[in-house]
């Protein structure tokens, strides 16, 4: 058992409980023991307690990313559970939920158990597997959903592709309704997408690249709204990119339909203009869209229509991404830049308060998964992230812990240096150059 730990003098943010004040945070036995004077006096006078001075830094629940790709099993040249979890804690994430589009996909019990077990062995971020909706993600036959949930799956999704068949989507929603997990939909009509490689608009026209219209996303969401209404099941829309999608989610929620949504950092700071020069690090799916879409997403994060902020961390090898735009794979890494990009996109311009951002990166993703967590409540697992919001740093992909170097943010200066990440009270990341900051 490790010694008690005190994070001294930080700005403790616990949006789940409306807490925002400068005080000490005490951790003992892997749990949150208490705050400031509310911590047990025996603990406060314990001479063995390790004191870490975090004055000037933010102390918040460990960040949660509901949408990552860890590539294991099968594509370990792109990422492994270990490298992905290392990237996660470096980015301040204590928990990551990983998508099932591995090779083979996570569509049976042993594979889901493998990912969970491997996550525990690695012992960095918590790794929560998301299982496939259909066998082989082929969209033909449902997986054994209850078995997969028992094995540890926290949601089901065929991410990477949509559940195309409306009948299967209906049944998946019916079967998960009472399990308390969402069906996470990769909303994309394959016919409308066609062989598109970027957002359909003036930029795609000019560059001669096949476009993906915004409605390729929205028509599936429109359908899923009706299916969620019919079944009472919970649809969670992954990586929302389009203004029309946001409108649909907003209207559906106003009617009491169980639909939630997430977006990813790049959709809030970049538009399709980033593809200029055929830059494959700006190739992602869904694609970067227009200024109007970007503005609509920011508004939707503000008003809570988009419940949580994910990364859609999608590592690829340099060789995969190096070549012509058409043949490069979709996706970029995000775990190590997400906090900084979100601070830059949402908090610095005043779209969101810092507690508002932390809520969408902690308690809200847990809520979407139908789980408790993402709070610093006494007795809760001591998953804690400490970061200096004012510290600016420069993105250098070569320094990433992820195997993926595919980022459009190379060379960007971002706010928000992660100093410390704790999972279950254990220090799983401590910034190397933090001696001056962490005393």
């Amino acid at each position, binding site marked *: 058992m490790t010694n008690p730990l005190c994070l001294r003098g930080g700005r403790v943010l616990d949006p789940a409980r409306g807490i925002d004040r400068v005080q000490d945070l005490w951790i003992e036995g892997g749990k949150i023991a208490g705050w400031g004077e509310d911590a047990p006096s025996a603990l406060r006078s314990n001479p063995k307690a390790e004191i870490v001075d975090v004055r000037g830094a933010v102390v918040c629940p460990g960040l949660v990313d509901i949408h990552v790709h860890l590539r294991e099993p099968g594509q370990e040249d792109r990422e492994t559970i270990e490298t992905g979890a290392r990237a996660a804690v470096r980015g301040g994430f204590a928990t990551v939920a990983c998508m099932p589009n591995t090779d083979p996909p996570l569509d049976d019990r042993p594979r889901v158990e493998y990912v969970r077990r491997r996550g525990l062995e690695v012992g960095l971020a918590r790794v929560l597997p998301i299982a496939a909706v259909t066998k082989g993600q082929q969209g033909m036959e449902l997986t054994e959903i209850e078995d997969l949930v028992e094995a540890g799956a926290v949601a089901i999704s065929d991410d990477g592709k949509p559940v195309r068949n409306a009948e299967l989507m209906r049944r998946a929603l019916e079967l998960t309704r009472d399990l308390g997990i969402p069906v996470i939909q990769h909303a994309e009509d394959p016919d409308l997408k066609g062989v598109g490689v970027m957002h359909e608009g003036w930029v795609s026209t000019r*560059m001669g690249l096949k476009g993906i219209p915004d409605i390729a996303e929205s028509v599936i969401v429109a359908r899923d709204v009706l299916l969620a209404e019919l079944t009472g099941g919970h649809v969670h829309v992954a990586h929302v990119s389009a203004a029309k999608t946001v409108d649909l989610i907003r209207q559906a929620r106003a009617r009491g339909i169980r639909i939630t949504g997430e977006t990813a950092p790049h959709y809030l700071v970049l538009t399709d203009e980033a593809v200029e020069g055929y830059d494959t690090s700006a190739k992602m799916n869904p694609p970067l869209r227009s200024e109007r879409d970007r503005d609509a997403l920011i508004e939707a994060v503000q008003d809570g229509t988009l419940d949580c902020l994910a990364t859609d961390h999608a590592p690829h090898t340099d060789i995969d991404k190096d070549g012509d735009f058409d043949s490069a794979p979709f996706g970029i890494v995000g775990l190590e830049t997400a906090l900084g990009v979100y601070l830059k996109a949402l908090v610095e311009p005043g779209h969101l308060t810092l507690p508002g951002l932390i809520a969408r990166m902690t308690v809200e993703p847990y809520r979407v998964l139908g789980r408790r967590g993402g709070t610093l409540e006494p007795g809760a697992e001591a998953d804690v992230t400490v970061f200096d919001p004012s510290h600016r740093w420069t993105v250098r992909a070569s320094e990433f812990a992820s195997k993926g170097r595919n980022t459009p943010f190379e060379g960007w200066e971002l706010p928000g240096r992660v100093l410390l990440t704790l999972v279950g009270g254990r220090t799983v990341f401590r910034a190397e150059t933090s001696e001056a900051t962490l005393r």
Partner: protein
Amino acid sequence: MTARKDLLGLEDLSADEIVTILDNARTFREVLDRPIPKVPSLRGMTAANLFFEPSTRTRLSFELAEKRLSADTVNFQTSGSSVSKGETLRDTARNIEAMGIHLVVIRHQASGAPHYLARHLEAGVINAGDGTHEHPTQGLLDIYTMREQRGRIAGLRVAIVGDVMHSRVARSNMWGLVKLGAEVVIAGPPTMMPAEVERFGVSVARSVDEAIEGADVVNILRIQLERQCAGLYPSLREYARVYGVTAERIRRAKPDVTVMHPGPMNRGVEIAQDVADGEHSVILQQVTNGVAVRMAVLYLLSRREPSGDVAESETPSVEATKNHDEPTLSPRR
């Protein structure tokens, strides 16, 4: 133009640069009419023609242009489907660099492939058609031919008819013509109109008839129903009926209209037989002019100093070329 290492598209060129190329092309066009149609401008230089996509006329045209300029040429031809495209491009770039090639002409099925090579190579890169992006030398030869036929570009009404969405020729035409002051009207099936195409500075007509009305030039695009356009239009028969340019439709244009087509033509589909071979057709002149335009582009790009500095832009002297006066025409290396 000579300040450039590469020619990737007409979007990047200024009106002045386009005019410089056209003026140079006129000089080379005269060279082509001589008994010995050859000048030593590129002697000692090597050009590589990389054709990842099948092409006969563009490849021949470039090869001929290189030979007419006395360059050494190497050819590389492969079908895109038989190789891993990205890897081939990367390896190709490395090999080109290792072989000390000065100019690279690339045709590729992926839009932006020439940009990739241009970023990775010291050698000058000429886009000979990339995906559905641009085909700048085709655009230039079209504009050259229009200027030759009509005496000017500014103020011309040019109709571009057909599958604009998949046409790299159309994009290069639109950029170039609008920059030089032409009025460009396009027409084609709504399923083959790219998003926000008006932002090229062109107008979209509701029908072929409307586009051709009063046109000085009608440029007809090739339809590739068997490939890109599958599912975008019901049938070739229907296409020919609604969008095919027939002699009757051509009568709506100016009486001395110039009819163009980048080839190869689908006779009886996008262009009627009698229009293709009719008195207004300059389709074969386009082919001849293509060699001259490509000579001009190769010549101008070859004048870049190895340090990255560039030689002064100047039109090659016809007198000098007649005498094979090497100091005037040979690139400064």
